[in-house]
């Protein structure tokens, strides 16, 4: 079953349509899938989410959510999807409990009716239920926003950059919450600029400058990297990077945490070893597994 179907969607902004936010995007998301849309700021993630949640009209193409058309059947879609925008959009001067009740009432339900679904998340902020939403910490706001987006038991949940600006520990906890929601059968589309979060998704779309670079499982994306990748380090990393960039066998070289990554033109580890030895710097050289970020950069540079 398909939960979301996107066909040839185009979105431009400006009087003369001079800014292209999305250029001919197509993909589908299956029911129950945890689908990641991964790309930097300005890639078009928010435009896409706003089209999917019937808040913005595409210039071209068509989209269905749960079988309903985002233009013709927008009212039906609004009843059945949950949306957590990137910017905190709850009522700051209502309390935690009042916000939750408000959203439940709008969707003709009650907090009690769907408490099971949000219990895991809401119980963490319930001790502060009388506090104004505006006075909550960042992490607590995020949990309240997620609870409000879930209170009408949506079939599809849209989360626009829920982890941006959030530290590594809280990010991990958030993804654990999403995994548990997925087990309840909710389809989840989540966008993020953090490449390392791709591995938490069933499938991901890598997006850059309004174009999809690749759609696959995280493993599938990594498998299509198709080049030998080496990791090198030395005591003078800046000089090493310079040396790597000058080597003809090296197609691309860039810092990657503790090491530099060298994308090789051929399967030529030993050639690089002897090249670096001639440069007279002591170094450590090993083979590396490409990850999503390596793939994203390779795709960015070839597209």
């Amino acid at each position: 079953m398909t939960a979301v179907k996107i066909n040839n969607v185009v979105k431009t902004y400006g009087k003369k349509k001079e800014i292209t936010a999305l250029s001919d995007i197509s993909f589908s998301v299956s029911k129950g899938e945890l689908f990641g849309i991964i790309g930097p700021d300005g890639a078009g993630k928010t435009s896409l989410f706003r089209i999917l949640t019937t808040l913005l009209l595409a210039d071209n193409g068509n989209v269905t959510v749960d079988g309903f058309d985002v233009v013709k059947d927008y009212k039906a879609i609004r009843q059945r999807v949950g949306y957590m925008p990137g910017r905190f959009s709850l009522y700051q001067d209502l309390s935690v409990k009042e916000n939750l009740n408000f959203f439940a009432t709008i969707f003709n339900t009650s907090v009690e009716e769907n408490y099971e679904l949000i219990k895991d998340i809401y119980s963490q902020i319930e001790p502060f239920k009388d506090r104004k939403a505006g006075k909550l910490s960042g992490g607590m706001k995020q949990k309240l926003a997620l609870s409000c987006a879930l209170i009408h038991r949506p079939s599809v949940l849209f989360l626009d950059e829920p982890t941006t600006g959030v530290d590594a520990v809280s990010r991990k906890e958030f993804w654990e919450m999403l995994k548990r929601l997925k087990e309840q059968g909710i389809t989840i589309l989540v966008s993020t600029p953090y490449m390392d979060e791709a591995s938490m998704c069933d499938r991901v779309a890598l997006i850059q400058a309004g174009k999809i670079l690749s759609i696959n499982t995280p493993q599938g994306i990594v498998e299509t990297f198709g080049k030998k990748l080496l990791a090198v380090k030395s005591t003078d990393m800046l000089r090493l990077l310079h040396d790597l960039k000058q080597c003809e066998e090296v197609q691309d070289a860039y810092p990657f945490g503790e090491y530099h990554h060298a994308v090789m033109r051929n399967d030529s580890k030993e050639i690089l070893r002897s090249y670096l030895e001639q440069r007279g710097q002591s170094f450590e050289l090993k083979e590396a597994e490409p990850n999503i970020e390596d793939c994203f950069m390779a795709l960015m540079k070839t597209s």
Partner: protein
Amino acid sequence: MAIVSMNEKVIVAENLTKKFGDFTAVDHISFGVHKGEIFGFLGANGAGKTTAMRMLSGLSMPTSGNAMVAGFDVYRENEKIKRNIGYMSQKFSLYEDLTVRENIRFYAGIYGMSSHFIKEKMGQVLGELHLTAEGDKLVKSLPLGWKQKLAFSVAIFHEPRIVFLDEPTGGVDPVTRREFWHMIYEAAASGITVFVTTHYMDEAEYCDRVSIMVDGRIDALDTPQQLKKTYAAESMDEVFLKLARKATRAAD
């Protein structure tokens, strides 16, 4: 790595503390940062990083403790501190409705740079950024990655002794993120001390030394290599998780 001058400290903090009512946001932190060092300042949301940075940049008075920044006292000489540092925030801080050149001239003017200096350096900076042709374009027309690189160049245009970078690469694409770090390396090599916060743990590896704040304290401070050894961790991500999970304080 940058050429770090070990015997010259540009930031010295001793038992630096900030309380808001009965809440201790920063709890007796002590550390030194060397000239030309790239110093990573990590911590979970709410650990006290921003409060500490505000004290070090002369924007907030400590409750107790001492700190010298660029040779000036944070209590008595905070105005001199402001003049001798650069600052770039996670939010894009240039004027969108001014051109690239106007933004540079505006910020350099605020720091009291002469017209002659601005003119000379403007050409050089725009050349290095490959923005010479875009100098008269409005900043809002530039792609995000270029804006961030421009904001960094503006923050160090007046050649400060220290530049504070608060999550400078959030949301930036992976290629630009690396170009940005290249600029950081070059700034450090020219003698500017770089004090940087980030949520990207791979970037912690690019720092000469890294401190990790937990509940207002600095719980670890060392080179990335040594931290990984001390905490028997494969990566800085693992070091961070081991330390930050001990936090008892709720996020900000």
